[in-house]
Structures are given as C-alpha cells and as structure tokens.
C-alpha cells in the first residue's frame, strides 16, 4: 500500500474528514495531503510533515515511512512485469493474507489475479496490498 493509499485509508477510518479541514488542523500547506493521496510517484519526503500527519492519525511515523517506500509506481512496475512475463506474483495483504497467482490485468484501482486451481479471477484492490517482493528495491 502506497503512502497515498494509506492516507486515504486512514482518513476513511478517521471520520472521513475534508482534506482542507485536516490540513488546517495539522498545520500543513493547502494541497499537501491532496498531493500525497493522488500521486503515483514517491511522495512524502519531508519527515517533519509525515510526523505531523502521523500524530494527527495517531499512527507511528515508521508506518507512514514504510508506506512511502511502497509507492504506486513501484507496484505498477511489479504488476506490469509480472503480467508481461506471465510469472507468478506474490502479494502480502493488509489483512495478513498472502495471495499468489498470475496477474491478468491491472489498472488504477485494482488488478485481476488468477489464483489457479480453477478458481475464478480474484479482483484485488491495490490499496489492500501491503507488500510485494520488489517493493523495497529502488
């Protein structure tokens, strides 16, 4: 899960507040959170800003730093490579489950994973993916 997805997830489970309102409460520049939630590339380089956000959502700073390393472009690259090479991909989910299968398609919000054994296609939400093998390779 990317930092943007994690922030969206945290916001959804934190009264689903208005972005501008939250930025005002935290004391961030307008648009900072919006930028972080929407970007595909690596964001959140400023640890001071991350610390403020972590304090607001009451999560450890390390959690946000962990998600910062797992940006969406990196997952896109893994999905793309797995689909092109038709190799088996592995995903650690936020729920603690591990999914292993072949990527059949992928897009902005989800990807279709063929688990094998005659199972129907599983549509996995990208924000549910916590980790993948190449996640921390930069």
């Amino acid at each position: 899960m990317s930092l943007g997805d994690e922030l969206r997830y945290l916001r959804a489970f934190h009264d689903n507040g208005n972005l501008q309102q939250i930025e005002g409460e935290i004391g961030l520049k307008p648009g900072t959170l919006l930028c972080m939630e929407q970007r595909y590339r690596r964001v959140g380089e400023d640890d001071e800003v991350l610390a403020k956000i972590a304090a607001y959502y009451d999560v450890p700073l390390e959690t946000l730093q962990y998600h910062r390393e797992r940006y969406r472009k990196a997952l896109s690259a893994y999905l793309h490579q797995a689909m092109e090479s038709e190799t088996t991909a592995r995903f650690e989910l936020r729920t603690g489950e591990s999914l292993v299968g072949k990527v059949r398609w992928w897009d902005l919000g989800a990807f279709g994973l063929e688990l094998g054994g005659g199972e129907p296609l599983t549509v996995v939400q990208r924000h549910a993916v916590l980790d993948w093998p190449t996640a921390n390779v930069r």
Partner: protein
Amino acid sequence: MPEDLRKVRNRKGMSVNQLASKSGISIATLIQYEKGEQRISPVDLRRLAKALYVNEWDINPRSSPLPPPPSRPPREERPAGAPRPSRPQKKPPQEKKPPPKPPPARDTQIAHLLTLVAHFGIDQAALEAEVGKPLGELTRKEARFWNGHFMRRIAEERPPKQAIDRRRAYLPEGVDGFELAYLQEQQEAGAALHFTLFDGRTFEGAVVGFSPYQITIREAGGDEITLNKLAIVYYRKAGGVAGGVE
C-alpha cells in the same frame, strides 16, 4: 566706508543666485537693490550682511546707479540695390580620411579554423592556398567567413540522425477501465460476487451499479448494499473459495 551691494558681492565671489538662496531675498529684489532702484530695507540689510559675512554698515543701503551698458555701434545702412556684403567663406571641405584598416583575425579564430580543416585532412599550407593569402593576413571578417564555411561543410558531411524508435510501455495506472469492464461484464451476466472487507465481513450479491469509488450489490434477500471500495480487500465470483490464499 560702506560699499555698494554689487561690489561687496563681487568681492566675496558670489553670484546673484547664490546670494539670493543664501539670504532668502528674491533675485528680482536683489537686482533692484544693486541697480540702486530701491533702498535696501533694514531687515534685508541684516540678511545680506549675514549672508556676505560683513557688517551691516559695510553695505550701502542705496547703491549708486549702474552706468548704462556700452551701446553697439549702429549698423551701416546698405544703399538700395547694393550687393550684400559677402559672408565669410566656409572652410574648404577636408579630405576624407581613408577607412580604418579592418581588424586582423583573432588567434582563436585561426586556431578554430585549423581545427576545422583538420577534419578534411587539410594542412595550413593547403588552407592558405584555398584562402588565397597567409593566415596571418586574414581579417576578422574573413576568418569568420572561412570558419562558417568549414563548419557548414562538416555539418553537410555528417550522417543524418537515425530516428530512434522510442516506445513507452503502456501503463494503465491512470485509468480504471479494466475493473469497470469486469464489473460491467458481471453485471450484465447477473453473476453474484463475493466481497471481502478489511474488517473481516463478507458480502455476496449481484452487481446493480458501480462507480470508481463504490459498488452496489443486491443480496439474495433483495437488500441493496453499497460498498465503499476503500473498505474492500478483494472480490471474486461467488462460489469460489480462496484457494490461492496461503
């Protein structure tokens, strides 16, 4: 012995303007004082003495009138029909200076030229033969011409750039078309989907509508539920078991 204001001013080396600005008395009034047309008022006398660094009694309150300016000799009357006196003749036109000698070529221009001709295997002697004079006699303008000439020749002989076939991988991360197409397909087929949420709950039902952020399903009992995608972990056709889940 008091002196006229004009004399005192001249002795002090001051102009009327300077005295006016220093004393605060207008120029017109000063001129009237100096011409003797008006008697200097006691207040102005004090100011003038202060401005000129003299005592009040050093300045004559009424200056003696100025002598009239020397008059010009009257013009000689020219009798009618008499020729105009000739004006002093203009100076004969000076001879035009020869144009300045063009500046010689810079050393850097010559060095650059030799570098350029080295591309064609031309040495200095051959170059001088082509140019028509020793390189040391080239003007700056000529050197610029020959540098441009050889640069153009080099450019002409360079093989054309080959078009690079650049292809960018299609990364569908900017669209959510695949998921929406999948949901459309399932909706049209009337298939039931099994949804697993982050909080562990599961829902099963046929898709009745969807958007980029929500999916609405109708459960077997007829209830319609709208699921926020952010709450969904994954979903698949109902009936399947998470066989690939470890």
